[in-house]
């Protein structure tokens, strides 16, 4: 039972303090769910990948997935019934959305009135550089042995660094195509690198 209360508490915190969008939330999610051992480092990265490939916001996707998987991981292995996982995913998804739902309903009048005021603007100006740091911290935290070379093999590590560098270039730099500049969609990059992984390691 207590795992559900802990998960609700964790996702309430993510919902309340998750400023700056999906990527900025990731370090908070990582700290809250990998820290207590609900899921592994690798599984967390896999969830981010799955979230990228499926529709919908990453915050919802991670809450739903982790809510389903965590109760089974804590009791060690398989769930007695998928009902317990479904219950977990409903609770986590609600916990991450309800705080901001209440804020939107109750506080939007207040913010609309004071949005032009100096204080509110100054607070958000202070948050902006922190959000950059939050996203960067998520990237740094995911750069670890579990994600780059779980077998601690040198060849795997070199391949992984190459995959990371090429993926970055594909997403970040716009390629000229028929007179227009286009960036590759993240989903396409994930698919390409999944294929690369299959060819390299299978």
């Amino acid at each position: 039972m207590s795992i559900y209360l802990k998960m609700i508490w964790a996702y309430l915190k993510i919902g309340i303090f998750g400023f700056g969008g999906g990527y900025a939330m990731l370090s908070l999610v990582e700290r809250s769910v990998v820290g207590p051992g609900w899921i592994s480092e690798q599984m967390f990265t896999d969830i981010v990948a799955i979230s990228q490939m499926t529709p919908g916001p990453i915050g919802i996707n991670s809450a739903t997935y982790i809510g389903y998987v965590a109760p089974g991981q804590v009791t060690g292995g398989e769930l007695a019934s998928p009902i317990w996982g479904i219950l977990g995913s409903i609770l986590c998804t609600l916990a991450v959305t309800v705080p901001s739902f209440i804020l939107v309903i109750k506080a939007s009048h207040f913010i609309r009135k004071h949005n032009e005021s100096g204080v509110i603007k100054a607070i958000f100006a202070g948050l902006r550089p922190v959000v950059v740091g939050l996203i960067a911290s998520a990237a740094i935290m995911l750069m670890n042995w579990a994600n780059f070379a779980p077998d601690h093999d040198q060849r795997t590590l070199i391949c992984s660094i190459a995959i990371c560098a090429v993926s970055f270039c594909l997403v970040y730099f716009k390629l000229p195509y028929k007179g227009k500049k286009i960036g590759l969609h993240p989903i396409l990059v994930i698919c390409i690198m999944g294929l690369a992984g299959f060819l390299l390691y299978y």
Partner: protein
Amino acid sequence: MGIYGQLFTTFMKIGAFTFGGGWAMISIIEKEIVDKHHWIERDEFLDLLAIAQSLPGILAVNIATSIGDRLKGMKGGIVAAVGTILPSFLIILAIAIFLTPETIKNSHVLSSIFMGIRPAVVALIIAPVITTAKAAKLKLTTIWIPAVAALVISLDMGIVSNPITWIALGALGGYLHWEYSRRKLSKS
């Protein structure tokens, strides 16, 4: 179909067909709400967006809630929010049921595919670091803030590494800077 039904199906469509969350969703929401259904004017949409953006939580859900709330009060907000969440909730639930951590570990094909995907995911997160850093117009006097924050958070040193601590510090810093410049202004 009543307005609630329309709200629900419109936001469900948005939730089901937009990949990549937040910003990708905004332009589609704008098209549906402002251009197609004419539920609100563009100016008001931008106002609602500014507020949804400044609140914590999931941007797409925030904007859905505020549009639903603006049209039909709290009930409208609930209908729009649930519509946005439902498709991705059901899709991910289905994936979670069939693709458990054990399934990946036990399948040689899946684990080799994910070994290629994981470093790519890291790259997908590095890219927005640079784009948001550019958008935040960091100067020499402020660029140390994200650098120190990122370093300390990733080192895992208890409370000082908690992202919530840094969010609070950022808000406090913004406030103090404003208070300081206001006092300096009133003295001169």
